[in-house]
C-alpha cells in the first residue's frame, strides 16, 4: 500500500485524500494513517512544487558542482557533506561514485553569486581538494517532468 500511495503522490501531491483513497480502492482512514506515519518516519520529506523558473522572467542560475574532498578520520564523508549542505543556497548534495566525491547543486540569482559562493565558501573548506562548476544552460526535464509545453490531445473526439 505504501508503495502505491508514494508512487501516486510523487507525481500528484495535491490530490484530495478522499479521491486518492477511491483511486487506490481503500478507505480514506487507511490512506490518512499511512500518510501521517510516513511523514512521521520522514519517508515523506515534504510536498514541493515543480516550477519552470525560465518562464517567469525571474533570473535564476543553477550550477552542478563536482567536488573532490578528503574524507575525515572517523567521520568519512558525512561530516564534510554536512558542512556543505548547511548552506541554504545549496539545493542538493549527493555522494557520487566515480571521478569525484560530491555533486553539489547550487541555486543563485547570478553567475557572480554562484561563483562567489564557490570561491569564498566551498573551495576554502579544509577538506575540499578541488571543485569544478558546471552551469545549467537549459532544463529539459526535471523530476520526471518534461519542461516543454504539454502536447495537446490530438485524438479524434469520438471513435468507436
Amino acid at each position, binding site marked *: 500500500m505504501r508503495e502505491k500511495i508514494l508512487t*501516486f503522490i510523487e507525481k*500528484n501531491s495535491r*490530490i484530495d485524500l478522499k*479521491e486518492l483513497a*477511491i*483511486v*487506490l*480502492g481503500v478507505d480514506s482512514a487507511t490512506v490518512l494513517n499511512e500518510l501521517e506515519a510516513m511523514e512521521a518516519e520522514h519517508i515523506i520529506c515534504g510536498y514541493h512544487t515543480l516550477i519552470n523558473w525560465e518562464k517567469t522572467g525571474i533570473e535564476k542560475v543553477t550550477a552542478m558542482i563536482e567536488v573532490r574532498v578528503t574524507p575525515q578520520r572517523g567521520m568519512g564523508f558525512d561530516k564534510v557533506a554536512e558542512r556543505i549542505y548547511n548552506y541554504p543556497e545549496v539545493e542538493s548534495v549527493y555522494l557520487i561514485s566515480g571521478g569525484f566525491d560530491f555533486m553539489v547543486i547550487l541555486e543563485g540569482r547570478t553567475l557572480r553569486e554562484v561563483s562567489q559562493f564557490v570561491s569564498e565558501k566551498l573551495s576554502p573548506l579544509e577538506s575540499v581538494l578541488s571543485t569544478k562548476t558546471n552551469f545549467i544552460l537549459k532544463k529539459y526535464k526535471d523530476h520526471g517532468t518534461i519542461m516543454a509545453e504539454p502536447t495537446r*490531445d490530438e*485524438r*479524434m*473526439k*469520438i*471513435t*468507436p
Partner: protein
Amino acid sequence: MRNPLSRTIVEIEPSGIRKFFDIVNEMEEAISLGVGEPDFDTPWHIREEGIYSLEKGRTFYTSNAGLKELKVEISKYLERKFGLSYDSDKEIIVTVGGSEAIDIAMRAMLDPGDEVIIPQPSFVCYPPCALLANGTPVIIELKAEKEFRLTAEELKAAVTSKSKLLVLPFPNNPTGSVMSRKDLEEIAEVVIENDLFVLSDEIYAELTYGEEPHVSIASLPGMRERTIVINGFSKAYAMTGWRLGYACGPGVILEQMLKIHQFAIMCAPTTSQYAAVEALKNGDKDIIRMREEYDGRRRYLLHRFREMGIPCFEPYGAFYMFPCISVFGLTSEEFAEKLLESEKVAVVPGTAFGRGGEGFIRVSYAYSLEDLKKALDRIEHFVNNLRK
C-alpha cells in the same frame, strides 16, 4: 449508366449516429469521454525502435504473414500470458490492426447463408464484416442483469442449423464486461456440442482488472482447433496509429486467411512490425504501468456514477463504463445530445453498439484523472438538473 455499386455494400447501414460524431469532432471546446483509444503515447523505447528501423532503411515489404522475429515473439507472448501455444510459422498472421484480422477471418470461414452469432452491445465492425463475407449476422442482445456477459442459454437459443461462427468480444467494448473461466467453459460446451467456431476478439485482454486475469477461450480443452484469436498492439501498448494486430488459430484456417491478406494487403507496415518486436520483448512493464493507471480511474469513475445515483455495474475490462441512464426518461441519443448541448461533454450513446445498448451510454476513461474529474462534475450538474 449502370449502377456502379454493389448491392451488398449499399445495403450495409452506415453508423446511425455519424451525424452526432461529426458535430462532436468539430466542437473544439467539448470535453470528450468518447474515444476508444488510449490517452498514453506509445512508450518511448517502442517508438525509438520504429525510428531506428527507418534510419536503417528497413522500408521494404516483409513476408506476407509478417516478420519472422515478430511472429516468434507473438508466439512466446501468448504462451507466457495466456498459456496459448501457436506455431509461429503456420498459425500466426500479422495484420493491419485487429480489424483486418476480423475481416479476413470471416471471409475465410463463411459461405453464403452461414450465420454469425454476434453478441451486442459490441464493437461496430462485426455485422458489416459478416455481411461483406456473405454471412448472416444473428444478434444476441446481452443483458444488463448479467453484466453483459454471454450465457450458455442465450447462445443455445440463438443457434440454428446454419450457425457457423460465434464472435466473442471480451473484454468488451463498450460495456467493459469480461468473461470468467467458468463463463467460457459453459460457452465452450455449447460451441463444441453444436460444432461452431469462435472468433475471439481479445484486443483488450491486457486491460483486465480485478483478481482473475484474462482467460482465452482457445486455452480451454477442445477449443484451440475451433478458435481464431484476435489480438494486437493498439490497446495494450497504446499503439493505435501503428495499425498492427494479429490473428492466431489452426493452420487450415490461417492458410486461407493468408491468401486474402496476401492479395488485399501484402503485409502489415514494416516500421510498425519492428516497433512491435520491441514492445513484446521489453514492454511488459509498460502494460502494468498503464493498466494500474486505468484501474485507478475505473474505480474513481464507478464511485462517481454510483454517488450520482446512476446505476452502473462494475466493469473489469477495457477502459469503458456503461452506466444506465434510462431512469431519466431519455433515449441514449437524446441523453448524449443534451449532455453535449448543455454541458459540452461528449459520451457515446449505447445504441452506437447495437440496439441492445439503448438506455446506456459509453464513457471512456482513457483520459487523465483531472480531465475525468472535470467531465464528471459537469455530468453531475447535468443529471441534477434533469432530476429537478
